[in-house]
């Protein structure tokens, strides 16, 4: 117990802060912060597996998040029948062509010795394949995008419950990570960072511009929910009774019957949105706890020991007969898959998929700040980092506004400096994150909750 005192203290302070937001701002805000903290925690766990366990730099977190989001769309949206009949065949045929192309490249790779001729053959297969695929897919894509472009204009998905997408998102992200890992993991730290950053930009570009698959920047809205809808809740008997019971003391103070009914309605509307958020919190908590148990088990298993050995001294681990390349690939795939889950969770919670909103600052570098601030290599630290940094990210604007008002108190309200500063309050969060990262790196380089290795 005593050993874990700092962990418990740190988490209690964090929960206390969120509760304070609930009391002073509103429970709705507090819960939405809490939910996003949980999603961030999942992302940081994925990044922590790669960076903390294995020392791999992955600046492509944004790409995996977006792929997870795409999975949510593809799983939950109902299929658009007309689009399928218009161009589905072409798309399916192109898919087979892509598979054929990959198989052909693999065949050449296995069959022939490494030589210049082999390189040329592979290059020509790829170029020819791309040209053929473009010819096959183009009419299909055009036909699909013409089907009611204002509402659909894409193939749609499978019409399954959205919760499945959390697994599919992991598979998508893991699959992409496998391909990237095969190509790029041989590169050392800095090159890998740039390569993954580029890949994530490419993934976003594809999601933004392949309208037949994702609707692109037209966004997909109104996704299915795993939680009840507020409107339905507000008309359900048991829910109204529940709210009445919770607020009975307040309600009993009001004597007038119509007024009492109006207040109750107010409480029901407020309560319904809190209830929905609580449902999400429950779901997310389950995911976080399962992942935490798994990652904790992995960290203290022989496998975790091996990963740390590889991280701390690659050559020595290699000399001891550990397959460094294979383990790096494995951990790259696992970490990315966890980030994919988080991406699907995020879209599930928002109920909409907006490819335009994926920005590297928010989805890649912020997650890195979380991992480093929280404590890389320590799962509890990484989760705490997710909570702390997300909390600050959201609360930075109010804090910034307060600071601006404080420092410019002597100035007139219409003074250009004050107006300008108040307009730029949203950017104070970047400043805060940057300063936070720099201070932590300088004075507590191993994070708030540093990695500690117990030998059992």
């Amino acid at each position, binding site marked *: 117990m005593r050993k874990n005192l700092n962990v418990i203290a740190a988490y209690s302070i964090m929960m206390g802060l969120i509760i304070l937001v609930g009391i002073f701002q509103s429970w709705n805000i507090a819960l939405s912060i809490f939910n996003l903290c949980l999603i961030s925690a999942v992302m940081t766990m994925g990044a922590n597996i790669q960076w903390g366990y294995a*020392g791999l*730099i992955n600046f492509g977190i944004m790409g995996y998040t977006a792929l997870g989001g795409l999975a949510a769309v593809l799983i939950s949206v109902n299929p658009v029948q007309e689009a399928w009949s218009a161009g589905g065949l072409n798309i399916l045929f192109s898919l087979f062509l892509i598979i054929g192309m990959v198989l052909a490249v693999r065949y050449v790779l296995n069959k022939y010795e490494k030589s210049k001729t082999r390189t040329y053959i592979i290059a020509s297969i790829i170029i020819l394949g791309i040209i053929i695929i473009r010819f096959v897919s*183009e009419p299909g894509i055009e036909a699909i995008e013409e089907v009611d472009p204002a509402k659909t204009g894409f193939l749609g998905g499978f019409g399954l419950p959205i919760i499945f997408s959390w697994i599919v998102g992991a598979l998508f992200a893991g699959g992409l990570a496998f391909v990237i890992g095969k*190509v*790029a993991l041989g*590169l*050392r*730290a*800095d*090159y890998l*960072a*740039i*390569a993954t*950053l*580029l*890949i994530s*930009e*490419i993934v976003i*570009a*594809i999601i*933004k*511009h392949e309208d037949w698959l994702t609707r692109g920047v037209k966004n997909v809205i109104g996704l299915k929910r795993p939680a009840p809808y507020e409107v339905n809740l507000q008309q359900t008997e048991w829910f109204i009774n529940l709210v009445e019971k919770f607020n009975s003391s307040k309600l009993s103070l009001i004597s007038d019957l119509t007024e009492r009914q109006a207040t109750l309605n107010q409480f029901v509307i407020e309560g319904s949105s809190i209830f929905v958020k609580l449902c999400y919190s429950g779901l997310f908590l389950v995911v976080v706890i399962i992942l935490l148990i798994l990652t904790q088990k992995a960290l203290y298993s022989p496998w975790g020991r091996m990963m740390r050995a590889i991280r701390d001294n690659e050559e020595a681990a290699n000399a001891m007969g550990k397959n460094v390349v294979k383990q790096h690939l494995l951990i790259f795939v696992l970490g990315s898959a966890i980030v994919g889950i988080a991406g699907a969770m995020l879209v599930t919670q928002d109920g909409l998929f907006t490819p335009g909103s994926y*920005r*590297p*600052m928010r989805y890649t*570098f912020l997650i*890195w*700040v979380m991992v*480093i601030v929280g404590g890389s290599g320590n799962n509890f630290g990484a989760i705490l980092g997710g909570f702390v940094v997300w909390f600050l990210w959201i609360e930075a604007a109010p804090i910034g506004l307060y600071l601006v008002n404080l420092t410019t108190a002597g100035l007139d309200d219409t003074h250009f400096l004050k107006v300008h*500063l108040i*307009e*730029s309050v949203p*950017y*104070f*969060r*970047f*400043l805060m*994150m*940057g*300063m936070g*990262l*720099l201070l932590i*790196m*300088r004075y507590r*380089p191993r994070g708030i909750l540093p990695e500690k290795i117990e030998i059992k």
Partner: protein
Amino acid sequence: MDFLNAIILLLNYIFVPALAYGSQLALGAIFVTLIYGILRFANFATGDMMSFGTMFTILFTWYFQSVGIGLGLLPTALLAIPFAIIFMIGYMLLIDKFVFKYYRVNKSPPVQLAMVSIGVMFVTQAVVRIIIGPSDRRFFDGEKFLIKAGEFKDITGLNEGLAIKSTQVITILVTVVLVSTLFWFLNKTKTGKSMRAYSDNEDLALLSGIDPKKIVMITWIIAGILATIGGALYGLDKSFKPFTYFNNMLPIFAAAIVGGIGNPFGAFLGGYVIAFSEILLTYAYKKFFMYVLPESMAPDGLIQLLSTDYKFAVSFSILVIVLLYRPSGIFKGKVL
């Protein structure tokens, strides 16, 4: 005649823009490669440092415009750049003193320095956005075109016009002057030689009495000059938007790595490699083939190899191909 038209078309839409864009990338890439070679870390704040320098150029341009100082046909920004450079160098040295120095003295691993540079990236981005805002800004004034497309058509009697923007010419000229001065400095002067020695082998350089503090300071000063001029030229030619500058970091890094990181000449050429491949692959060749091929064979589609939305894919593919076949870059740089 058609053939001439086709050549003018390619010159107008591919060669001239790529030369200008390549010069802008090259300046950034030399910046990255110098920091990498001498301070030994990948600077992820590159794009934002460039936008910081550009921001000061814009602020000074506005100031000069408001007091009525200008350069006539040339953009006022050229006058503002030297002042911006002074501020930029001040900022760079400040960051180095308060942030990077600690890790350099402690001999931290390069990865840690790269992480620190992300912190600097956040701070710089915040400062730029707080001071000038995130929106798109144009600060070009003076004569816009050196040769207008219409005039060119009138003079030559061709169907295709060749428009050369004055910013493109300025970019190329400034780059040539700046880069040749830099190479002269690195290869001929004593300080430049000691910088190269320091980059090559730190211990040996220290043994021969080279002062590391001086080397680091001069590196930051050169980096400040390159970042400001590179950023300002890009802003003059296109427009200034902090987010675009942040994204420009990717092709810049690709250029530095392709040329062989740590090798300034490689970085210089790498900029053009990336720029030319990006524009060659994303240009729609329909009109070109209409001129070259007989009428019956005129193409239906745009004949675009890759949509412009996927320009990052070009940088990435070049990066991967080069790293797979020549891990140290086209011109031998450091093997990581």
